[in-house]
Structures are given as structure tokens and as C-alpha cells.
């Protein structure tokens, strides 16, 4: 009944994750300024890129719900939002854990961090809205509207927060990845990105399949 995931996908994800962990801890060189704590970025940066990708998927899927009907794209939007919130949580927490030994503070209100926090809040709200609305075409439409206005809002948030920060310009430029990215670091980063991307694809596909199964079961249970 559930659409079968091509088993190659989770397998590939497992291999990639193992490879990434190996590279991160055993192969990537220790960074000169930040020390070993810098290895957190091999997780933090890919997670961030994929979190933003997830929300792009939510935005596009929401538009498609409005354009071509709620059935299939609503599931994609909801699944992408779930995975997006998961990854964004990882980004925010690993970012804080990295920031404390590196910058001396757990958090700064710079444009990128603040926008990511607002992004997290908006999509948590999106999921909350869904969970509190009875399932059906109406919920899909309402969710699509929220997805669209969320997508329109985030660039405006980024712009506004950047302006807000001009009131107190940062005295030092906070560099994220460090002064130099050696080729070993880049390789490790890319492998980690591949691993995260595969995990993302697995989770998304699985979640969409589950939602589809659930909907079909709802129909069947009504008839049997």
C-alpha cells in the first residue's frame, strides 16, 4: 500500500553519512584558529543549505497547490516543511554550540541568524496551523496560502533585519568558515552536503509516501 521507497536511496544515504562522519573526524585537518570545534560547521553549513532548499520546496509546492489543486502538492509542501523545520532546528542549535567557544556568545542578532530564526518560527506556525485544522481540501488551501505569504515575507525580513542592524554596526567582521578553506576541508564539506542531501531526499520521499497512504486509507476505511 505504501509507495515503496527505492531501497537504493536509504542505502546510499547510510553510506554517505558514514563516509562523511569518517572524513569529518578522521581526515579533515584541524583548523588553525578555531581548533577542532570548527568540525561542527561540516554539519551546520550543509544543514543550512538544505533547510533553505526545503523552504523553497514549500514555496513552490504551495504555488502549485493553488495552481493545480491540493492533492499531490499539499503532501509535498507539508513534508518539506517538516524536514525543513527539523534541519533548521539543527542549524540553529549547532550554530549556537559552535558560536559559544568561537565568538564567546551563544547568539548574535545578525541578519542571517535572525532571519533563520524567523524562518523557523514561521514554518513552525505553518505546521501548527496544519495540525490544528481538520484534514481536507480546505486545510490544503489554507496551508498553501500560508506557504506563499511565508515565502514572500522571508526576503522582506532579511532586508528589514539588515537595516535594523545598521543601528549598531559590528565592530569586527565575524567570518563563518574561517580564513582559509583548504581542499581537504572543501571535500569534507561536499561529502557532508551529499550525505545531508540524501538524508533529506529519503525523509521527504518517505513522508510524502506516508501521507499519501494515510489519505488512501481514509477513503478505504469509509467504504469497508
Amino acid at each position, binding site marked *: *500500500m505504501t509507495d515503496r521507497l527505492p531501497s537504493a536511496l536509504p542505502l546510499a544515504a547510510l553510506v554517505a553519512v558514514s563516509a562523511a562522519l569518517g572524513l569529518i573526524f578522521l581526515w579533515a585537518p584541524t583548523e588553525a584558529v578555531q*581548533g577542532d*570545534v570548527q568540525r561542527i560547521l561540516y*554539519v551546520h553549513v550543509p*544543514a543550512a543549505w538544505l533547510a533553505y532548499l526545503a523552504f523553497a520546496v514549500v514555496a513552490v509546492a504551495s504555488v502549485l497547490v493553488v495552481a493545480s489543486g491540493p492533492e499531490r502538492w499539499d503532501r509535498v509542501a507539508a513534508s518539506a516543511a517538516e524536514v525543513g523545520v527539523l534541519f533548521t*532546528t539543527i542549524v540553529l542549535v549547532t550554530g549556537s*554550540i*559552535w558560536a559559544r567557544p568561537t565568538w564567546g556568545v551563544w547568539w548574535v542578532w545578525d541578519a542571517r541568524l535572525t532571519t533563520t530564526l524567523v524562518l523557523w518560527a514561521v514554518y513552525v506556525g505553518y505546521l501548527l496551523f496544519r495540525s490544528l485544522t481538520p484534514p481536507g481540501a480546505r486545510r490544503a488551501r489554507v496551508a498553501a496560502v500560508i506557504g506563499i505569504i511565508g515565502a514572500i515575507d522571508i526576503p522582506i525580513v532579511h532586508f528589514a533585519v539588515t537595516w535594523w542592524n545598521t543601528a549598531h554596526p559590528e565592530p569586527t567582521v565575524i567570518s563563518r568558515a574561517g580564513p582559509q578553506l583548504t581542499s581537504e576541508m572543501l571535500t569534507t564539506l561536499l561529502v557532508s552536503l551529499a550525505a545531508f542531501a540524501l538524508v533529506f531526499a529519503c525523509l521527504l520521499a518517505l513522508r510524502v509516501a506516508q501521507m499519501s497512504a494515510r489519505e488512501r486509507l481514509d477513503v478505504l*476505511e469509509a467504504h469497508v
Partner: protein
Amino acid sequence: MSEALGWLAAAFGVVWAALALYLWRLAREQRRIADRISRIEGRADDHR
């Protein structure tokens, strides 16, 4: 070095915990779906 280890453990621990929690949720949902399927098949058999 041991201090860095602490931070690394915390960060990777959080990532692992978050993914594990989500996968556990997915597994629970999968079980629920399987239950509903067998219940429906049971009901369908009863009708025959």
C-alpha cells in the same frame, strides 16, 4: 582538546538526537499505517 570534544559531542549529539527522534516518529506512523491496512483487510475478509 578535551574542551573541544565537549562542544563537538554536544553538537553531534543534538544532530543525532534530532534525526533519531524524527525517524522514530516516522517509524511509529509506519506501524500505524500497517495496523490500519491489516484491519481493513480483516474487515474485507469478514464481508466475503
